[in-house]
């Protein structure tokens, strides 16, 4: 029913960060908290991507996708050894 949490990787458009934020992680956290009070950032990324990973419900992920400055909210993928 969309209540189960799963991991998402959230890609942020860092150039769109509002000037009121002093550090991008504060902006990331604020964006996350706007859709989920309880969600925490698992990793924040700066070199590989701009963004973070977190656990969200499907509904929260959809809401986050619509927030300003969000490029993509991609579900966790499982890779395997070759």
């Amino acid at each position, binding site marked *: 029913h969309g209540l189960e949490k799963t991991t998402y990787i959230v890609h942020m458009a860092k150039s769109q960060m509002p000037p009121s934020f002093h550090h991008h992680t504060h902006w990331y956290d604020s964006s996350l908290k706007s859709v989920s009070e309880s969600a925490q950032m698992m990793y924040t990324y700066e070199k590989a991507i701009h963004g973070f990973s977190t656990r969200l419900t499907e509904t929260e992920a959809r809401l986050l996708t619509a927030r300003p400055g969000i490029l993509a909210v991609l579900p966790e993928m*499982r890779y395997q050894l*070759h």
Partner: protein
Amino acid sequence: TTRTPLFLGLDTDPDLFPQSDSVSEVIIGVLDTGVWPESKSFDDTGLGPVPSTWKGMCEEGTNFNASSCNRKLIGARYFAKGYEAMLGPIDETKESKSPRDDDGHGTHTSTTTAGSPVQGASLLGYAPGTARGMAARARVAAYKVCWIGGCFSSDILAALEQAISDNVNVLSMSLGGGMADYHRDSVSIGAFAAMEKGIFVSCSAGNAGPNSYTLSNVAPWITTVGAGTIDRDFPAYVQLGNGKNFSGVSLFKGDMLPEKQLSFVYAGNASTASNGNLCMMDSLDPAKVAGKIVLCDRGMNARVQKGQVVKQAGGVGMVLANTATNGEELVADAHLLPATAVGEKSGDLIKSYLFSDPNPTVTILFAGTKVGIQPSPVVAAFSSRGPNSITPEILKPDIIAPGVNILAGWTGAVGPTGLAVDKRHVGFNIISGTSMSCPHVSGLGALVKAAHPGWSPAAIRSALMTTAYTQYKNGQKLEDVATGKPSTPFDHGAGHVDPVAALDPGLVYDLSVEDYVDFLCALKYTSSQITTLTKKNLTCDASKTHRVADLNYPSFAISFETGQGSSPGGSTAVKYRRTLTNVGSPGTYKAISSSDSDAVKISVVPDVLQFVEANEKKTYTVTFTGVSRPSGTNSFGRIQWSDGKHVVGSPITFSW
């Protein structure tokens, strides 16, 4: 690894290769199952101080402390937040919450790429010799991202983030996950960021061959590596009671079979299970297999587990027969009982004997390690194949390298079969996969990087690709074990890597970050998608014509749209542009083109390029004119530039 350095020509003339000091400045990051630091392959004797560029660390955790690292294994970290979020806390009785490799795969790949030389290496006496990595003096940084339950994208991205921050020069990733678009695939996205920093990224092509469209890791900023055999084999012969012999392979070491014929039974006739022929757990009737050699069909469960099942049921030996899925491809295993693997044809003939003789008998003769096997290399059946399902206009895989029966370092945590019941401890193991070919190319990329520190990742890949070979010394084309016929660029890409030639390619097809952005524009990526990949707020220049065909790639994949754009005469012409950069001495290069099919004509303009100084760039256009062919038809060709000393070759695929 043993043998592959010789097979690749690395042992021939040390003067051909970069000075050890420059190789020891190269840091190779390996994303895998971690590392077994006690492996002799991480001996740092003779290595100088850690490169001053290194920013990484040795992270402590279960059975792993800071002193586990040294001047060879300079960094080790682990990333498990994504894994634990998905599957719950790590069970530390089963796997180490640290960079320690409890699986073996990560130790195998990291020692393959840059292990120090170890004399007297072997697996239970098989494949003996001095084991060394491709870039034996390069430094290793291990990033553990794969666990018992898999490897998760959030952890992989975190490891890539760290590896970029740590200042690795080469990244080796022997893992993959499906076929997502570039802007949705974390390996592709992270590899783009690495490429931007000048890091050469090598990834495995996947083991989903021999079917078409099975490739992983096809982004053009990644070097995608398929697998081939080397000239080494481990024969073990099946000798039937009717006097017929069949050739198989095995790495069995232990109490041999008695020197006489033994009763032989087909697993499917020794089980009440519907799939009893596969020797699944507890599927065999001990009353029917005790004291006998059992023939099991390959498939479903692990090959070595079938041997365990036979042993547990009281069987004394196993013949493992390929089915149509694997054809004639033979993969050697360190079975727990006397066992050998045979190809489908042999398996069928052995089964017809089993079914026709009322008292069938057999024995297995083990012949150890044989070298000088020809032809070699042949493309491994399991190696994933093109065309590229994401961007058919980019030919993948890029190259093949040794990936079958590769001996390299192993974990002390599990035996060579990986089975829980296998209590043997080995310093080296022999395994197969594109996981094994990828670190060969990572190490060779490190050698090229050491010889040419200023080269971009694209230039390094170009050098490896344009100097790769597609023929044996006798002039015959490379073979594909899946068909027994000549392989094609969809199987082997540019061909088999030749590191000696790659050090001096003459010319390279270089690519900048801007070129890749133009490529994304040509794919009609939205600005959001481009920003996801590049982290920059870029827009495509609407006044510029962006064509995938113009990405300065060292290979060509031509699609003729049947019935579209055809002239009244029924032919279609497509034009490609390429730029060559001189990385050798001044010279005049002439183009030669060839096509396997008279349905395509190739025209290169100009067909002579004169380079008078280093780093000079020259552009040429090539026009492919094809007549109509039924949809699904493929043919192949090649463009080669040569100054008489260097050969700069590019494979071509034509698809209708």
